[in-house]
């Protein structure tokens, strides 16, 4: 079920009313309703793949309980590996089987050996990369004795399948979300209103910014061979805002929806395009995934400790794995590699934690130096996004080649250029609002709260009218494919 669909517009109020008026008799009822609603939400797309979620839930629940009783280190490790193999096995089969197969076949043919292997017509279950990582974090934390295993199966099933963040995150840690299923939830007016505000902002980002940018990003990337350099730059900018509006919009709707049910999810995006270097960008972009890899991969590998060689190795591993997590395509691996190359100099000269706070905190405008740093960082991410969006490496290289040609200094020229300038104007307005709200969890968290209610509501209605009147053609959330 898409957040920006009539189905969800009906589903959400129904579940909300049932949750607070019918199931409010006990915590168990509310949790059971969350599980039921989440399965309906997921099954709306394809009910057959619900079995994967149920199986993954069962395995991790049982593994967690057995880990609590087991003292033998060898058996504990075996239990952990059971969970890892099941979860990553699902992920590997559905997401990477064909990729590995095709690459093996190509590698063998390169050495003059032809092998017969046919790829399977595999459908990628929506959200599999998200919920497998979420359940894995539970098992790993229990294994590390950082978390007590749950005895409440319904609460655990609700944690694994919680519908607001089931299909595209944020990837919640069991230590943050699971305890919330044990606590009695009281309806909070402030939290609910805040949730609605965040949903509204998320919808604006998705429908107005991302969906409009998608039209031109798709056109420019699909016709890149025939377009001039400046147009290709614009195409990359459109894609940068498409993916940001799309994914951070989804996260906002997810966090806001969870808030309506009395849950607090962690911030997933913290205004990444205002970052002053790549290290800061990665602390602000898809935070739940970056911290997952940091805690369960980077730090166990040694992190930034040890020799220079270890630092380099660990950096490359984490960025390449992160790229590969996004999809079974060399373009994502290159995207990860490129980000590792951007990040490594900062790490080696110990400047990767130079910008921990919010840019221009307490000031209305940034300094000239801050502007330059933000523009430079944004330019680096633009180049990386080309790999992320391109069909293959060849396409990405020819796209970048097209950018750095003489035509870079010509005027953008493509079908619909006039209308796209309107989208550019929308992006500028959007960035202005994001800048004003950059010290909050989401841009409009505080905007208008001190205003006269007429102005405040006018602002909200402007956002709603923009969604209605300026929305682009409906596009599926990009991160559904990951």
């Amino acid at each position: 079920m898409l957040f920006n669909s009539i189905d969800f517009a009906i589903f959400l109020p129904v579940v909300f009313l049932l949750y607070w008026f019918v199931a409010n008799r006990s915590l168990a009822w509310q949790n059971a309703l969350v599980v039921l609603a989440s399965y309906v939400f997921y099954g709306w797309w394809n009910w057959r793949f619900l079995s994967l979620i149920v199986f993954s839930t069962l395995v991790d629940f049982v593994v967690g309980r057995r880990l609590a009783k087991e003292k033998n280190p060898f058996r504990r490790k075996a239990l952990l590996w059971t969970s890892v193999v099941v979860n990553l096995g699902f992920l590997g089969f559905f997401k990477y089987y064909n990729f590995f197969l095709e690459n093996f076949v190509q590698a063998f043919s390169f050495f003059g050996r032809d092998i017969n292997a046919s790829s399977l017509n595999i459908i990628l279950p929506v959200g599999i990369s998200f919920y497998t990582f979420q359940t894995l974090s539970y098992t790993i934390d229990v294994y590390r004795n950082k978390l007590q295993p749950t005895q409440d199966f319904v609460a655990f099933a609700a944690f694994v399948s919680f519908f607001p963040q089931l299909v595209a995150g944020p990837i919640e840690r069991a230590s943050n979300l699971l305890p919330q299923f044990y606590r009695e939830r009281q309806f909070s007016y402030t939290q609910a209103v805040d949730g609605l505000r965040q949903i509204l902002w998320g919808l604006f980002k998705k429908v107005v910014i991302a969906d409009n940018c998608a039209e031109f990003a798709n056109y420019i990337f699909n016709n890149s061979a025939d377009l001039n350099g400046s147009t290709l730059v614009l195409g990359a900018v459109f894609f940068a805002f498409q993916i940001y509006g799309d994914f951070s919009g989804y996260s906002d709707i997810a966090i806001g929806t969870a808030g309506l049910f009395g849950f607090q999810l962690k911030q997933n995006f913290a205004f990444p395009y205002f970052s002053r270097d790549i290290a800061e960008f990665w602390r602000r972009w898809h935070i739940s995934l970056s911290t997952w890899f940091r805690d369960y991969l980077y730090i166990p590998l040694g992190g930034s400790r040890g020799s220079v060689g270890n630092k380099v190795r660990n950096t490359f591993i984490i960025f390449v794995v992160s790229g590969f997590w996004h999809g079974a395509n060399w373009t994502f691996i290159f995207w990860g590699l490129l980000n590792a190359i951007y990040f490594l100099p900062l790490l080696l000269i110990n400047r990767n934690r130079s910008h921990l706070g919010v840019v221009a905190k307490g000031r209305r405008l940034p300094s000239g130096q801050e502007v330059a740093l933000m523009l430079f960082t944004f330019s680096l991410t633009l180049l990386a996004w080309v790999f992320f969006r391109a069909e293959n490496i060849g396409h990405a290289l020819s796209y970048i080649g097209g950018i750095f040609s003489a035509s870079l200094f010509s005027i953008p020229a493509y079908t619909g250029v006039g209308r796209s300038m309107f989208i550019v104007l929308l992006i500028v307005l959007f960035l202005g609002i994001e800048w004003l709200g950059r010290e909050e969890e989401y841009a409009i968290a505080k905007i208008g709260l001190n205003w006269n209610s007429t102005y405040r509501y006018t602002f909200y209605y402007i956002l709603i009218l923009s969604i209605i009147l300026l929305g682009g053609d409906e596009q599926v959330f990009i991160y559904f494919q990951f």
Partner: protein
Amino acid sequence: MSKFLRKLLLFTLPVIVLAIIKKAVTPYYFGDDLHAQKLAFFQQNQGLYNTVLFGSSRVYRHINPAVFDATLSEYGVGAFNFATPSTMNPESYYLYEKFLEELKPGQIRYAVLEAHVLIKLSQNATTTKGSYWNTLKNLSYSLQYLHASSFSASEKWYSTANYLRSFLYGLVDFGMLNPQRRARHREQQLPHHQAGYLALEDELQQLGAASMRSQRRAKFQNDTSRLATRIGAAKNQEAYEQKRGQYNAIHLDRLQRLLLLSEAKGVELFFLLPPRLKEADYEELVPLLMEFPPERVLSMYEYPENALFYSTVYSFDIGHFNKQGADLFTRKLAELMIERLKNSPNRTRK
């Protein structure tokens, strides 16, 4: 909680009011831009036309008014093709009904309306095209139709849910009010010359080789064997006719009302049963149309009488004719109409 719900209701009220106003002030066809363009053209050139054709792409792509007019010249026919792609039951019936409501008596002499089984909404339920026509009246008709249909229980459930989704979406959808979406929609629509007709080849020339239509055509040309199933369906005429009396009463009632409404406006209505439908479609439509006097029905599906319409030579893709096929079909259809007109009482030639 009550404060929250009260404020939320108050907050959403203006949006609901806006949606109601939108529904009230926008024209009935505000969801099919191609139909809107055709209607505007038709109204500007009213004197030229006395015959209208309604239906899906099987009318839009298959009936060339120039050929139709020439064949029916002795009846002084001037036809305008109102059909648009994917416009089926009930959308097509709704558009024809609304057209009639706004028609002055005597303005139109003949109408051809393609008969369809009820469209099974799925993903398209929550699109502007899949919902603008879904008024309370059409929703009621669709649900009654589904209830009376021979669909399986799961199909009935699924379709009922989708008709409800479509109805709700239609209430809140501002689709064509969105200037950007409207502009894009207009760009996608190609000029409809030749009195509303546009052959698929002509469209393909403008869409280019990368278009989905081109790919669909290539797929058909690579494997024309699928046409055999359509031929198989057309061969079962006897089996369909044996089901006489087993019609969907709600569907019959709707068509009868359209017939009466047409008569009231001085329009002679013909129901078209096109070739190349699926077996399930004929199973429902043949017994249904047998309930009407034969002179009201233009049945063009029977095999081998209409074998040419199943020939790959005249095919564009599995469901459609190419330009040559469309011209041939139009001529044969017009000839059948002449037969019907000759057999019809009180008939006068030009």
